[in-house]
């Protein structure tokens, strides 16, 4: 567990959107998917997921419907709305710019200044 990284504030929403972009998922499924796509490198508390999910639904980025899971259990499935898809694109671009900027900033050597 110790080699798992803490999430940066605000990145959980981005991860949720990304996870759901690959197909409708219920809450636990989203958790597993994030673990899978991040190579289990991120630490996410199970409960911490839900406030984010409700917020994204409230913002109209996700759509929630009750259905039946593969385990034959009742579950709430989330999928991206059109706005959600658009937001995911924007946020991904933002993130990339940020990462590039910070990476290059950190990579600067003393003699380059």
């Amino acid at each position, binding site marked *: 567990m110790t080699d798992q990284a803490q999430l940066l504030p605000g990145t959980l929403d981005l991860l949720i959107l990304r996870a759901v972009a690959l197909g409708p998922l*219920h*809450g*636990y*499924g989203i958790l597993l998917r994030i673990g899978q796509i991040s190579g289990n490198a991120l630490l996410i*508390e*199970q*409960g*911490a997921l*839900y*406030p*984010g999910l*409700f*917020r994204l639904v*409230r913002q109209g980025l996700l759509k929630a419907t009750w259905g039946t*899971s593969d*385990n034959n*259990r*009742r*579950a*709430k499935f989330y999928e991206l709305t059109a706005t959600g898809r658009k937001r995911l694109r924007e946020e991904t671009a933002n993130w990339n710019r940020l990462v590039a900027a910070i990476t290059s900033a950190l990579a600067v050597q003393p003699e380059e200044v």
Partner: protein
Amino acid sequence: MNLFASLRFRIATLFQRSQMNAEIEEELRSHIQHRADDLETSGMARTEAERRARIEFGGQERVREEVHQALGGNFFDTLVQDVRLSLRVLRKSPGFTLVAVLTLALAIGANAVVFAILDALILRPLNVPHANSLWAIERGSSKAINHSYPDYLDLRDRNRSFEDLAAYNVTGVGLDTGNNPSSAWILETTGNYFDALGAQPYLGRFFHASDEHGPNSAPYIVLTHAFWHTHFQDDRGVVGRVVQLNKHPFTILGVAAPEFRGTLTFLSPDFWVPLVNQEQVEGANVLNDRSNRGILMVLGHLKPGVTPAQAISDLNSVGAYLEKSYPKDDGNMTFALTRPGLAGDWLGGPMRGFLTGLMLLAGLILLAACANLGSLFAARAADRSREVALRLALGSKRTRILRTLFTEALVISLVGGAVGLWGSVALLRELRVWQPLPTAPISLPVNPDVNVYLVALLLALVSGFLFGAVPMRQVLRTNPYEVVKLGSSGRTGRRITVRDLLLVMQIAICAVLVTSSMVAVRGLMRSLHSNFGFEPTNATLLETSLSMSGYSGDNVPIMQKRMIDALETIPGVKSVGSIDRLPLYYGANSSNVFSDKAADLRPANAAAEAVLYNISPEYFDAARTTLLAGRSFSWHDDKNSPRVAVVNREFTRKLFGSVSNALAGDYKMPDGTRIQVVGIVEDGKYGSLAENPQPAMFLPVLQSPSSQTTLVVRSNRDQQQLVAAMRNKVTELDAGLPFTIRTWTQELESALFPSRMATLALGVLGVMGAMLSITGIFGMAAYSVSKRLRELGIRIALGGQRREVLQAALGRAFKLLAFGSAAGLLLGILASRVLASIVYQATPRDPLVLAGVILVMSLLGLVATWIPARRALSINPMILLRDE
């Protein structure tokens, strides 16, 4: 999201909360089941898997909380939650809650009542259009508001500042609408009165200036809405009806609107009659007499754009003209403006002062209550420091904890405010219909309206925040680690804290109230037993106005003599005398008097202004006024014999220097009449109980007739039998004469009314202040004992004496009490100077008052510290040390 949508969403989430909770719960359950499924497939037993899944997931309650927060619906939610929590916490300590709510209810209720009265009498303008530009005219340095009719005409016609000037008088008349003579209170007004004020009729029409054509030319009546309602049962056919007013036919023209009840806030007259009919209404016409200042008030609207200062200088130039043109009658004709509602400054000034003072005291009471509750809250917060620390340690935010504390304070203050308001509205309803005096239509137009509700709400909120803020610092400073480790903050502050200051202030306020109410009560008691210059016990009064029954001129004294003779035949009656207007009864008539040597009889040369009474020869005997020298009148002192007078001691001092010089001496009236002093009587009270000795003269009714008649009947007979016999005798003489009978003691109620009210108000506030002090001192003492239990226990264990233990436990409380009392006593003595103008002989330099205040304050301290002291003494060190 716009504001409205957001609000709607918040309210919707508030109501959908339980539905949401169910959904969240189901979703979380589903989550845990899925996780358990996974764990099961990895080889775990089902029950173990579910247990693991739940443990991994953690607190579901917190997730639910965070979901709600994420949805932004948390303001109302948290509020509802906080209120629920507060109610739960408060229910756990019902004693504290009850004390807190009652304290606030009393304090806020008192403020609401005082404010409502202040609003009704002072803040709210008269119910006429453009009340802001409506002013009454005051005259001279004494700020008199009465004027003579000729002066009024000059002021009205010569000023350039007022749109119009109207004038009126208050008087009583006999009204007969069929076969039921009764007396009524009316405003006698100039014809332009309604037009000048801008009032509109509710029914029929008003009278106008064009209706006046000389004396007795306008026999018209305009009814107030209230009188129309009670005496004519809202009969719309009343317009045009002819009724008998003092046996003269008058036509009812119309009814005024319900909200217009004349131009005095505290008086509710029955109807209006034109002043030109004064002779029919009052029995005599003085409208041509410039020296008779019998017009109660002159008032009008300023023209647009004219400032009061401009109007005053305009009026003063008219005054200068009057002084020059009529030097004999008019002196000191400078003017000022005042608001008409309280009859000018002579009544309005003290009333305004007293009510403002009362409001201030009520505010202080509320402040004391807040100080009190603040201390209680601080003590509670300290007792709950462990709970607070625990909540902080578990991750609760400080703001959230403060929020709960504030919610608690606000819940208490709002509940207290609501209870207080409820009580005050009930009281105000009573006050509204209350007729304090049987003899005059005095009433308080209090109206528990939106203003009062707003003030109560505002006070509740402000006080909630005030006392809720006291423990704030305590919470902000709490260090959870320290508190949990130590048990409680073991510090016993020796410094002077804010709480101590609050307590001293509160005790001082209480002492002020106790001092001033004691001063008032003592003054009132003294005034009840002081020398009035007459003896009210065992005297019964029969009051009538002979003009109401059509008597005038020489018929008046004849009828008076017949009534006196008839009443004297009642068995058990010792003596009967008549006087035109009783002393201490709504101001007396007065006249300038001049020394016999004076040649120039202008007002400025007057030797004194003396109160004037017209009496029958038997009056002094019936009233038990002591004759110091000379003789009283006889029925031979009539128009054919020389003019004579009986004067009081103060009159002789002012005009003759001494009693012995005065007897058989002469003085002059403003019209030049020489009057000889034949007797001298003791000084009495004439205008008010609080006045200094005033010169007074008594004139024989045969030489100076007056249709106003009050018969003083002295008898030891049973009151009821006597009244019945008097009624019979007078009805035998004239069945159509309206009259009232009451005892002189009852009559004095009106003279004592202001001081009674002042005493009552101060007494009520004083008791409230005392109660607050008791709870305040109690709270402080109990708190300091409970804080220092361990120290006291050790003292006892080491063999400390009871006295030492008590001193350690309560010394501080007593020190604060002594300090606060001393400050309060000092302030109270200063405040009593104001009181002296309302309550007769109210002096703080009274050993009884001083001793009383000290006694009361010590008693308060004793009562308040009794329980904490018992607790301190009953400490069992063994149990205490074992506990720790």
